[in-house]
């Protein structure tokens, strides 16, 4: 649909609606609005954002597709229960400020969530439109609409209101999505909030992990600025457990409550031969060098070296694997292979990321898994040896278990291998916080209110859930912040503070 056609169609639709004649059938007939994207060939050589966002007309057309269901099943699909139906309705009305206000009742980071949430397995999976059309990709594009209103320049959008000072101090460990949410909610309650970040820049995985082309860093920076304007203190280069322990923060530095949102942060390797060769990276290292330290500008200012590889194999099928593969493309690799031991259906990555990777020329090697990595006499990777797999019976996760085909080994010539098969729990807090309870995988044990075994200490996100998503970390942050605010209120009422 050309822009002119869209203008005309939208005008007709709005006129029909105003006359009270826009029926469900008409709404269902509106074509799903495609996201404008940077050309696949062009974007292979830049780190600019791929998805460019709806125009106003596209957003209103898409919003008109929403049936405004009474029971709003989409809301059930949202981990933080945004009033989706109402904000989509506001967009259809053209009241974008109201739409944003509705989102901000629950979410502090709409510009982030609109971009990186896996909507197709959350809100959009429940959407009546998608269900009726028997195709989740034809559901109302809630995420794109969220992004649309978040990206509009609301110059007068106020900094969230902060209650009078309570004199109570809250420490947040980690400045990722969970930490940001807890910081904002605790600050709104009037507490004196400090966020501690180990890296030299705040933002956690949104800065070091998720690439610029998927989540521009300026957006994350904007969210951090909002926190600062609310009066939240952010201390970088501060490693809780090493610079100060949790016990010191609480007993000596006067913090009354602590939220641990440190993320997973210990990359898994495959335990195969050759994983220590030069040119083998964890996805964390590869992405951190590329994103946090801008290795894509090596030669133009950046100091951080990264293998200037020509043939790269990425192992894994999640979002981090897609991010790594697509980063390798942008760093100039001629050939990027994505090796995954199941099929595309089982891939945990978002459908959109998979499509983008394919469009950008990433070569998918499905039903294959590395057996060993081969190096030359200098210890540099020269090839990866894989085995072919077939799908057997479903396993505990409900996905069909991949089974290796004996004797099916073959080699792919590569000069870098990126392992993107997930993270284990980082041991730093465990090593330095006696009294805190962990499960056998090293994740912190919490109750339904994100409360740990230590009084006043709460935890959420990947260090509790194992590898999860930005939105789940935010969801836990919400719960934890409410519990922290409640705990502190009770404590001050009982006069212990």
């Amino acid at each position, binding site marked *: 649909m050309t822009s002119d056609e869209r203008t005309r169609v939208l005008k007709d639709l709005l006129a029909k609606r105003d006359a009270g004649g826009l029926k469900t059938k008409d709404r269902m007939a509106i074509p799903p609005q495609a996201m404008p994207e940077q050309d696949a060939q062009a974007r292979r050589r830049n780190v600019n954002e791929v998805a460019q966002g709806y125009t106003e007309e596209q957003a209103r057309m898409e919003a008109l597709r929403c049936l405004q269901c009474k029971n709003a099943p989409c809301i059930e699909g949202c981990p933080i229960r945004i009033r989706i139906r109402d904000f989509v309705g506001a967009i259809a009305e053209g009241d974008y400020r109201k739409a944003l206000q509705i989102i901000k009742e629950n979410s502090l980071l709409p510009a982030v969530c609109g971009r990186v949430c896996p909507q197709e397995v959350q809100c959009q999976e429940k959407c009546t439109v998608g269900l009726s059309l028997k195709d989740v990709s034809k559901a109302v594009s809630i995420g794109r609409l969220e992004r649309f209103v978040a990206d509009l320049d609301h110059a007068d959008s106020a900094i969230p209101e902060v209650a009078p000072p309570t004199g109570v101090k809250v420490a947040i460990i980690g400045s990722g999505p969970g930490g940001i949410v807890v910081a904002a909610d605790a600050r709104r309650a009037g507490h004196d909030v400090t966020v501690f970040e*180990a*890296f*030299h*820049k705040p933002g956690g995985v949104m800065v070091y992990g998720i690439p610029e082309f998927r989540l521009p860093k300026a957006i994350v920076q904007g969210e951090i600025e909002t926190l600062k304007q609310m009066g939240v203190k952010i*201390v*970088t*280069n*501060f*490693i809780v457990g*090493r*610079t*100060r322990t949790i016990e010191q923060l609480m007993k000596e530095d006067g913090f009354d409550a602590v939220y641990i949102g440190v*993320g997973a*942060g*210990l*990359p898994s*390797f495959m*335990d195969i031969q050759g*994983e*220590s*060769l*030069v*040119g083998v*990276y*964890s996805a*964390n*290292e590869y992405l*951190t*060098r590329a994103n946090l*330290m*801008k290795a894509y*500008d*090596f*030669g133009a*200012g*950046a*100091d*951080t*070296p990264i*293998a*200037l590889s020509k043939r790269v194999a990425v192992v894994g099928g999640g979002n981090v694997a897609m991010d790594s593969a697509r980063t390798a493309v942008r760093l100039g690799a001629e050939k990027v292979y994505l090796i995954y031991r199941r099929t595309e259906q089982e891939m945990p990555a978002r459908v959109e990321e998979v499509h983008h990777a394919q469009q950008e020329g990433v070569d998918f090697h499905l039903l294959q898994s590395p057996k060993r990595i081969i190096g030359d006499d*200098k*210890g*540099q990777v020269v090839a990866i040896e894989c085995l072919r797999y077939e799908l057997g019976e479903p396993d505990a996760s409900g996905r069909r278990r991949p089974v290796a085909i004996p004797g099916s080994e073959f080699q792919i010539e590569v000069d870098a291998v990126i392992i993107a098969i997930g993270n284990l729990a*980082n*041991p*730093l807090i465990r*090593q330095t916080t006696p009294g805190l309870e962990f499960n056998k995988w090293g994740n912190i044990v919490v109750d339904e209110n994100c409360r740990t075994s230590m009084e006043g200490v709460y935890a959420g996100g990947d260090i509790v859930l194992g590898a999860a998503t930005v939105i789940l970390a935010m969801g836990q942050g919400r719960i934890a912040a409410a519990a922290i605010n409640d705990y502190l209120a009770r404590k001050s009422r009982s006069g212990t503070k």
Partner: protein
Amino acid sequence: MSHRIVGKRQIGEDVFWAEVEASLIAAARKPGQFVILSIDSGYSERIPLTIAEANREKGTIELIWQRVGKTTTELADLKEGDAIGNIAGPLGTPTHITRYGTVVCVGGGIGNAPLLPIATALKHAGNRVISILGARDKTRLILEDRFAKVSDELIVCTDDGSYARKALVTEPLKEVCGRNPRPDHAFIIGPTLMMKFCCEVTRQFGVPTQVSLNTIMVDGTGMCGGCRVEVDGKPKFVCVDGPEFDGHKVNFDLMIKRLNAYKAQERQAHERYRQHRCKLGLND
């Protein structure tokens, strides 16, 4: 929070010393730990450096580094009163200090810097400390006077004989290990190849040995895995599992290969910076 340099001087050929404001790290740091620094927050590389000493009252730490690549050259160009953008730490598991009896501390080149606080702590814990310090030549020998203060016996040697005894550190180490009674524990810090050969000596004599590894790192908290080494056939992360390991179990050959991973790009970055310095008229 930036970190002002309160004192700085060159203490050897390409070796620099600086005292830097970092009160929290000064208060928390224990022997064996290190920091990660970057000069600014834009494009700067993050590099691990050991803490040579800390002064809690003044809130400062002492850093010693060798000028080898771009970042260490840039650091060497900073002056008293300048600031380092980011210093995070202290990182790594502290050295296990106990009363072993007689300990031999072997330092090579820049490795003397991290070894000093360990030797000092071992002395304070009641050990008899034998220190063996080595360097390529006289101009690269550092901290001899400070080791003299904490050692019961100090053996110094240079590879070329330009100062003290002409020998590699493995020679006096062999002699010390051959004594009766033999030392109860060895601590070895220096170039990877030196640590490898020293470990072969202590292995022959059955002297338990700690080495402290300095690998490529990004975050220093376990997140990137770039620092991984093979210890006893298993991958270990230097930043959280180390930096100290049983020297008899480390796969030094693999570690040496990994350390060379970025040689070409380091040279490029360094060359660009060198040209930039020339234009600015910065000279040594």
